[in-house]
């Protein structure tokens, strides 16, 4: 304020003693330097007089406001104080507020909330996916939505809002639901690191370890591809989202028959056997099932990365376990150790013989059962499968048993 006084001291005309100085009520020391109409006098007298008149009217109005403070006001101070609590706003970080967007910009959007000042929604916080402009997230002027407060801008008392946190919560909730329903979803691979690849699912980034990826490809090959994935772990507090491709593929290929021969690759070796990857599922080839001869050390027979033919012994769908065997495929016992290639060539034949032997054994067992319990009404049809009488002669009435067909 002192600088103003200095500026006006340089004027040639002395300050007019305007009516302002003679006002007794409000101490306005700085206005002695403010000569209102000094410079304007020189311009035009008629205009200045008009303005002076107008100014006087304004002064009178101000006086009136001071002397009759309640005139024309429809409410009292008590009403005002009482209503204060109703319109209080909570500006803690983390609270949700409802607001209307009224202006959008390249950097974000301005949102009107009942607070000291309008709030700002930066473009990075508008959506989980990366977007360039808030319009892509659907934020247009006039949109009324709920936001969450994430910070405060000290310079102009405005709040910083975010939609992202709300969307994240929703995404985690959806992932939890999907996990409980055990569905297969498609996720796009966006990146990879040392242990696996990163895929985007429901807007969240999930990790797929290499061990859980079914195909034998590196991270670069998988980039930008959509894989079917299933949830392995969904933990919001630790921000862990682990997915598996293997499990999803396993579901789609649950039709592996028992006794079929498949080609597989050795994944890893354990003291008790080897894990073989067959078409998406890991099966265990137990050490005792490799060969008729005793195998003391697995690494002499198999190495990780070896391809070999194995036969499926059993398939436990619920636990996703498959038991494999190469023992049954050996033409002569001990071949696996001595001559693995022979085993593989003969694998198909051996499997067929194995199946026939199994079928015969089953037939014998059923025949025995029939002999000892003829009144059970079961018979043996040409395939060697036990079935009830009525199946052989479908045109017979159900009630009457005709023993002539036996």
């Amino acid at each position, binding site marked *: 304020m002192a600088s103003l006084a200095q500026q006006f001291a340089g004027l040639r005309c002395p300050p007019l003693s305007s009516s302002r100085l003679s006002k007794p009520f*409000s101490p*306005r020391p*700085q*206005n002695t330097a*403010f000569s*209102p*109409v*000094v*410079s*304007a006098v020189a311009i035009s007298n008629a*205009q*200045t007089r*008009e*303005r*002076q008149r*107008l*100014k006087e*009217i*304004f*002064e009178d*109005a*101000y006086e*009136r*406001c001071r002397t009759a*403070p*309640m*005139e*024309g*006001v*429809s*409410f*009292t*101070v008590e*009403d*005002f*104080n009482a*209503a*204060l609590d*109703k*319109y*209080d*706003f909570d500006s803690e970080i983390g609270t949700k507020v409802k607001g209307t967007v*009224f*202006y959008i910009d390249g950097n974000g959007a*301005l949102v*009107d909330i*009942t*607070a*000291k*000042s*309008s709030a700002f929604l930066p473009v990075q916080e508008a959506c989980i996916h990366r977007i360039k402009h808030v319009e892509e997230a659907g934020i247009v002027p006039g949109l009324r939505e709920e936001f969450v407060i994430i910070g405060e801008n000290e310079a*102009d*008392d*405005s709040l910083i809002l975010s939609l992202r946190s709300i969307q994240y919560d929703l995404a985690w909730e959806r992932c939890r639901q999907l996990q409980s329903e055990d569905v297969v979803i498609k996720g796009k691979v966006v990146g990879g690191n040392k242990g696996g690849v990163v895929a985007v699912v429901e807007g969240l980034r999930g990790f797929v370890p290499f061990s859980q990826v079914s195909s034998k490809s590196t991270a670069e090959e998988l980039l930008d591809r959509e894989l079917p994935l299933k949830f392995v772990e969904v933990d919001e507090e630790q921000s862990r989202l682990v997915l598996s491709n293997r499990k999803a593929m396993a579901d789609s290929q649950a039709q592996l028959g028992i006794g079929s021969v498949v080609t597989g690759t050795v994944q890893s070796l354990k003291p008790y056997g080897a894990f073989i990857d067959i078409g998406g599922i890991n099966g265990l080839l137990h050490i005792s099932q490799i060969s008729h001869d005793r195998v003391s050390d697995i690494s002499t027979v198999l190495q990780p990365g070896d391809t070999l033919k194995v036969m499926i012994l059993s398939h436990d769908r619920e636990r996703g376990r498959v038991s494999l065997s190469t023992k049954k495929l050996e033409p002569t016992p001990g071949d696996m150790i001595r001559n693995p290639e022979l085993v593989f060539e003969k694998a198909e034949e051996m499997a067929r013989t194995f199946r026939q032997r199994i079928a015969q054994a089953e037939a014998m067992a059923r025949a025995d059962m029939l002999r000892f319990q003829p009144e059970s009404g079961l018979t043996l049809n040409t395939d060697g499968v036990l079935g009830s009488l009525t199946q052989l002669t479908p045109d017979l009435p159900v009630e009457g048993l005709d023993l002539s067909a036996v």
Partner: protein
Amino acid sequence: MTRRYWNINLEEMMEAGVHFGHGTRKWNPRMAPYISAKRKGIHITNLTRTARFLSEACDLVFDAASRGKQFLIVGTKKKAADLVASAAIRARCHYVNKKWLGGMSTNWSTTEMRLHKFRDLRAEQKAGRLNRLPKRDAAMLKRQLSHLQAYLGGIQYMTGLPDIVIIVDQQEEYTALRECVTLGIPTICLIDTNCDPDLADISIPANDDAIASIRLILNKLVSAICEGRSSYIRNR
């Protein structure tokens, strides 16, 4: 002077957040008579005073408009720019919503020259003469035109100094306020808890940060201007 009833409603004002002030540390002690309480580290302005000053300001503005005076609304805050423009267009007054160039009113002769140039450029563009020039000249003139449109677009129809100036944020438009005071133009200003109430002629204590509060006050003033204008036209 006519006293009319302007519907200044307590609920409306509180919903718009007119009563919020700035933080307690940033206040101007001269605002003490207008502050009613302190809550959660911010000052609360006394809405009864606001209502009183607002109704008084509306009366004055209605009177002036019914006598055919010119108004100027100054609001350069980025948030409030669109609001000021739309309010002024509704009330058919002049406005400044981009930067207030220094000397816009005290150096009115120069501003007038710029306005003439702006008017001529607009006429040329309408006549299509800009397209006949070489590309570089046309580009330069178009750039000048857009520049002038941005800064002087609101006052392009102003022929002389305005009679009453309405200022939206005192801190932001300090230059404009001082120019009006030097020229003796009566001013109506929106005052927040960190402003000086003695600078302007009628200072309305209100929240100058929230867009809803600025919108409310401007709407009241603008409706008063509109009514005054219509009565001026009727009684001509």
